[in-house]
Every structure is written in C-alpha cells, then in structure tokens.
C-alpha cells in the first residue's frame, strides 16, 4: 500500500517526472547532514509516521462508537467533527463531512461502516485531482518551477531535493537563488545545488526579479531541461511582498522561451493549521499556483488541511517532503494517502 512512497517506476515517464528508481539511493553528502533514509533505513520512517497518523485518526473514530455499537448520536457526530479538526482539516470541510454524516447516520451502525463512509468522503474530495497529482515535465521544453511559500515552510530544502531528483534522471538543472532577503539563504541553496550537482545562479542582495531573469536566461543558453527558482519566504498578508511576487511572475512570463512549461508551487508545512487555507487562497491568486508541496510530513503532524485545500481551492498536492535527506521527496498519490490514513 505504500507503493507510492517506495518510488515505483512510472509508466508515462515522458509526461511526468520518472522517479529515481526502485532501489534507495545513497547520496554523497557531507557527514553532518543526516538523511532520514540513511538514518532509519529507507521509507520505514514515513511509513511509521503515517501509520501513526492513521492509527490516531482511526483510533479516535473507533473510540467514538465505544462499546455500545448503536447508531450515531449527535454528540458522537460532534466528536467526529472534533477528530477531523484535531487533524487540522479545515472547519468548513469538517462541517461538510459531518453534515453528510448526519444525513446518513441511520445506515452507519458500526466502526467499519463509519470508516468506509469517511474514506469515501475523503476520496471524493481528493480524487478529482488525481491526474494533476504529479509534477508536469515536458522533455521538449524548458521546464520552469517557481517555488513560493511563507517563511520557514521548507522551500530551499525542497528545491535541493527536486534538483537532485531531476539530475538523477539525467536532466540538466539550473537553480536560481531568488531569496536575496534572508541571511545566508543563497549559501543554503548553494550547498544543496552542489550536493545535487545543479548549476546555481546567485546575485546576493540583488533584486530577486533580476536573479530570476538571469536564471531563466542561463537555462535557455545552456540548454538546460529544468530551471528551479527559489523565492524569499513571505507571509501572504504582506501586500508589498505579494506585489513583488507578481513582478516575479511577469519576469518569468517575459523571460521564458517559446516552449516552456511553467509550474508555480506552494510549499506548505504539514504542521500548519487553518492558516494553510489563507496561504493557498492568496498565493493562488497572485501566482496562479499549479499545486502544493507538503513538507515535514515525517513528524506527527497530520496534514489534514490538504483536504480543505483540494476542496476549496482545487489545488492538488504534488509531492511530499519526508525528511532532511536529499532523497526524502515523494510523489503524492491521494488514494494511497487515504489508505495510509485508514488502514
């Protein structure tokens, strides 16, 4: 059931990123960098993290029925709502699911029936975006990925991992250090780029737009396959910083070659609560997002907000970050994510 986590080879590898292969990769990294895959033996850590999540959610759903085994009372439905909220599912989504549950409560008389119902509700929300759940890659074009998000979400680390993944597939990658604000952000990206073997474009302290322009130019000139652009973390309510992003978007539109595949990706910390919805809303409006990257899913955070983001903003999750190692990046598969939650 965790096949999506173990990097099974994709059939249609020309239209999506093929994964790095079936064997776990060992990467030459400086000794101080701890990789989850090295430290804990491959994917077991995510498996255990997710099954922990699954257990606690399923566990609390089971607990709702208790020993009585009778039909659901209103209090029990309230408890289910609370269970969802505790997993950081957005309030409206939680209310919608429990309203549907209320209407159907007469036919739900066992924990198993409840579980089936919840699973069905969740997949109805996530399934429409199944086809969009992979990063697009066009072998004939320059693929430009612009990475945005709030401070500390994990943008730079994600870029390191993504660059590594493309390079493992034999692609030529340019990385643009567009975070010229945070102290040493360029250094951080430089270390990742070196580990991954990507070309780095940096102009410390310069206007981010000019770095982004140069990175795309460099990608065109060197006939790279992929350009990944970092941006400074910004809180979505900072009007002037969001205006700066808009400018960056225009720069990309101007600089990109005729044949280009551009994706805007929002990096979202799995521990984020209801504010994730605001982030999705505002960044989507400014950047025409094509998807979300969910990071730090190796903790005990449940990442329940991705349900709300899919339902309210039609944004698919494209990848998940599951550790600090360069290989700790996975494709997202909604069905298997739900399976992991419920089994």
């Amino acid at each position, binding site marked *: 059931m965790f096949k999506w986590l173990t990097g099974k080879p994709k059939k249609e590898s020309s239209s999506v990123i093929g994964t790095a292969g079936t064997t776990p990769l060992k990467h030459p990294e400086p*000794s*101080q*960098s*701890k990789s989850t895959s090295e*430290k804990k033996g491959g994917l077991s850590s995510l498996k255990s*993290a997710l099954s922990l999540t699954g257990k606690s959610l399923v566990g609390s759903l089971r607990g709702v029925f208790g020993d009585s085994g009778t039909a659901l009372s209103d209090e029990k439905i309230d408890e289910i709502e*609370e269970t969802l*909220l*505790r*997993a*950081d599912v957005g*309030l409206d989504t939680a209310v919608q699911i429990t309203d549907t549950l209320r209407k159907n409560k007469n036919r739900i008389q066992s924990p198993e029936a409840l579980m089936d119902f919840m699973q069905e509700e969740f997949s109805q929300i996530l399934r429409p975006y199944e086809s969009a759940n992979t990063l697009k890659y066009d072998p004939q074009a320059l693929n430009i990925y612009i990475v945005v998000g*709030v*401070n*500390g*979400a*994990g943008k730079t680390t994600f870029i*390191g991992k993504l660059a590594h993944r493309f390079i493992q597939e034999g692609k030529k990658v340019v990385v643009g250090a567009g975070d010229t*604000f*945070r*102290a*040493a*952000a360029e*250094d*951080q990206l*430089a*270390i*990742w780029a070196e580990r991954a073997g990507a070309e780095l474009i940096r102009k410390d302290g310069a206007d981010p737009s000019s770095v982004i322009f140069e990175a795309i130019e460099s990608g065109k000139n060197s006939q790279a396959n992929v350009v990944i652009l970092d941006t400074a973390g910004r*809180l*979505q*309510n*900072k*009007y*002037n910083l969001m*205006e700066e992003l808009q400018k960056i978007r225009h720069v990309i539109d101007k600089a990109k070659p005729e044949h280009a595949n551009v994706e805007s990706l929002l990096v979202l*910390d799995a*521990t*984020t*609560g*209801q*504010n*994730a919805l*605001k982030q999705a809303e505002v960044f989507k409006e400014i950047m025409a997002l094509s998807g979300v990257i969910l990071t*730090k899913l*190796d*903790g*005990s*955070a*449940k990442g329940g*907000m991705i349900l709300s983001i899919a339902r309210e903003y039609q944004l698919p999750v494209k990848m998940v970050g599951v550790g*600090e190692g360069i290989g700790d990046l996975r494709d997202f598969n909604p069905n298997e994510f739900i399976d992991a939650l419920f089994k």
Partner: protein
Amino acid sequence: MFDQLSERLQGAFAKIGGKTLTAENMDEALREVRRALLEADVNLRAIKAFISRIKDRADGEAVLKNVDPGQQLVKLVHDELVVLLGKENSPLNLDGNPNILMLFGLQGSGKTTSAGKLALKLKKEGRTPLLVAADVYRPAAINQLIALGQQISIPVHTLDGSTDVQAIVQGGFEKAKAEGYNTLIIDTAGRLQVDTDMMAELLVLERIYKPHEKLLVIDAMTGQEAVNVAETFNTQLEITGVIMTKTDGDARGGAALSVSEITGKPIKFLGTSEKMDGLETFHPERMATRILGMGDIVSLVEKAQQVIDTDEAKKLEEKIRKQDFSFEDFLRMQKQMKMLGGMSQILGMLPIPGLDKNTREMLAHGGESQMKRIEAMIQSMTPGERQDSELLKKSGRIPRVAKGCGIPESDIRQFVQQFEQMKMMMKQMTKMGDKAQKEQGKQKGFGLHMPRNTRKRKKKDKNMGSGFPSGGFPGMPPGGGFPKFPGF
C-alpha cells in the same frame, strides 16, 4: 494575527446585543465562541476548559440580570482569555554568569532569527550577549547566524567545520567566561519532537549547561500539532517559556494560545516582523484586549516612547506653534513614523472598527509608497527650499524638483500647496488644543479615540503621557489625522 478571532467573537456578541441574555442565547453565543476558537487553531482541550469556565462564571455573576449582558459577557471572555494566555507577562531569568538561554523547536519555526532578535534586545538592555551557532545540520544555518550577528554587531561563536554540538557550546561557554560576555544564546537545529536521537542531543546540553531559560520557538501558524510539540518538548526538557514567531501574519494564532495553557509555561516574546528589532514582550492582558477588537494602544504608546526623542518632539511642537515647520521637519516626522514599525503595524494597533487585515495592508502600502514619493520630492529640493516653501514659487524651481525626483510637476505643486495648508491647520489646531487643555485642567489627551478600559489603564501608568505634545503624536499633525496628499 488575532484579527479573525476578534471578528468572530464580535459576531457572537452582536447576536445577543440588545436582547436580554437568557440561558439559551448564552449557549448560542458560547457556541460561536467555540467555533471561533476552533477556527483559530486553539486546541480542543483548551477550548473545553475555557468554555466551561466562562459558563460557570456567567452563572455565578448573575449575568442574566444585567442590563447589558453582551458587554458583561465580553468582559468575562476577555478575563478568561487573559487566563488562557498565561496570566502575567513573565520576564527572562537572567541569573548566572554567563546567563545561558537555549532556543529550540521544529524546523522552520524561526529559531535562528529569534536568536538574533533576542541578542539585540538584550544588548539594548545593556547586556553583553554572545551567540552560539549550534545548528550543524541545516545547510548554511551557521552562516545565517553569522550574517545576522554582523547586522546587529553581536559576536557569534562557531567552530569551523565541527559537527560536534557539545564542543561548540563548550567553546562558547569558555569564550563567554574568558572574554566577559554575560549572556550566552544558543541556537540549536530544528528537530521533530518524535525524533529521539535529536531530542537526546538537546537533553545532553540541558544536563551539562543547565540553561537558565529553555525557550521553545513556535510558529504562530501551527495547527493542533502545536500542543503535541509543546507537550513533548516540555516533558523532556522542561521548557521555561515560549517564543511565538510570525505573529505579523494573519494566522489566528490560537494554537499558541493553548500552548501556555497546556504546558503551564508562559509565552515570553512575540516575533512581529522580519526585521531584527521585531521581537516584542508578550503581554496577555494586551493581547486579550486586541482579540476583542479594542486595539492595542498601550503597546503603541510604549513603542512611541522608546522611539521618539522627547526633546526633539518638544522642538517640533514649538516649530508647529510658530509656523516654522519646514519640509525638513516633515521628513523627520516621517522617519519617526517608520521607526514606530511602519504604517501597517501602527494601523494594526489602533482600534479602527471594520478595518480588516487586507485593507490595512493595502492602506499601509499605499501610505508607505506615498511616503517614499514625498521623501523623493523633498530630497530633490535645495536646503533653502526645504526650510522655506515660499522659494518654490519662483519660476523654474518646481520643474527642477520634478526632474530631480521623476514626479510630475503638477503633483509637486499639489504637495507644496497641501503642505502649506497643513501647516496652517496645524497651527490652528495647536491653538485649539491648548484652549481645550486649559478647560480640561490637567488631563492630557492623546488625540486618539480610546476605548474605555484602555483609558482606565492609562491612569495606572503615570509615564504614559510624557513624550507627547498636546493633542497628538509627533509623527502626526496634532489632532491625530493624516494630512491628505495627492494619491493618498
């Protein structure tokens, strides 16, 4: 960050406003309160305790008989929020020489930035901090701290190429002893509370150095998980306090509210901007006031006192009186406003009804870019013109200024004209203010409309009136209004 929470609560109270409060509609109001808190990421456990306390107190205080039950419920919710937020503001324990402060938390919560901010704050209070860069895992984390240290002129202890955290901290400790730094601030790597190896690393440091403060750094956007994080860190390391970061965002911040309730440990500081001086002392009382949509004038006033030079303010007031006020002074006023933390923060602290976060950001941004334009215009004037706006009426001068700053002549003419009008207005208002002051005896006004309970607190704080010329901020014309400028 608590904006939406206060909007929700206001909605809840509006429902019972006017009507008499009954057991039923109080339940309805409390349901709204619960929903608001849930939406704000407050932990469910904390909410339950909160609601039941309010209910008990409402019964006990016979709210039902009160003429204005809505108001009374507001007060109850306010008081309970203060309790939920961790009661009194608790200062740092600065014992020991060196005094040792250790920061830890999840990845990306803002430890390195907070370490820098804390160092700057303590330096301003006359201490001699030494930063210790003990995050050996995240690429360039050490460089980041070094860069921040340079920005704020505070030394950073590192051990080149070493990944031995204990050796790094030991080196910092010895350096502090030898060179006389009285405060050691240790920045550690981000870690998940479920990562036992990484937690053990902290535990070792804790045992050896017995830090006087063990501060958990938590992102204000954290969801329900915040409680698990806080609980685990607290159980294993017995934290002494919390730094809540990114509170300048629009996260409802509720999870952080419950952290102090669940762990019993106080929130000591709030991170309020990306700048190095963006660290504020946490005051539960003020935050509760802000949650209820009453603004946070006390914070603003305190900040103004720190920033604004009293002598200069008096000089400025004198100039306004004599109608001596020049473009040069105007620029100085703008600078002081900027030092207060920018328009958005100022607007955020004022109790303006219906001003939501987005509108505020937009207004502030408009205001700030307008301020930049004005700065450009004034800087393109000669020193003489800056002192005497009359000079600009001579032919050729305005076109020259326009060329200098790239702003159309018409805008400059309009600005000069409005500047002169403002000067007149200021003079008149100063006169009026003086008159009013005489009539009111000694009572000094702030020129701002304040809610009743804030005014009460004002009396307690006897220093608060100083630093303000009659009737307004030195950063604003008396009367408290912003002058109207082109495009504003």
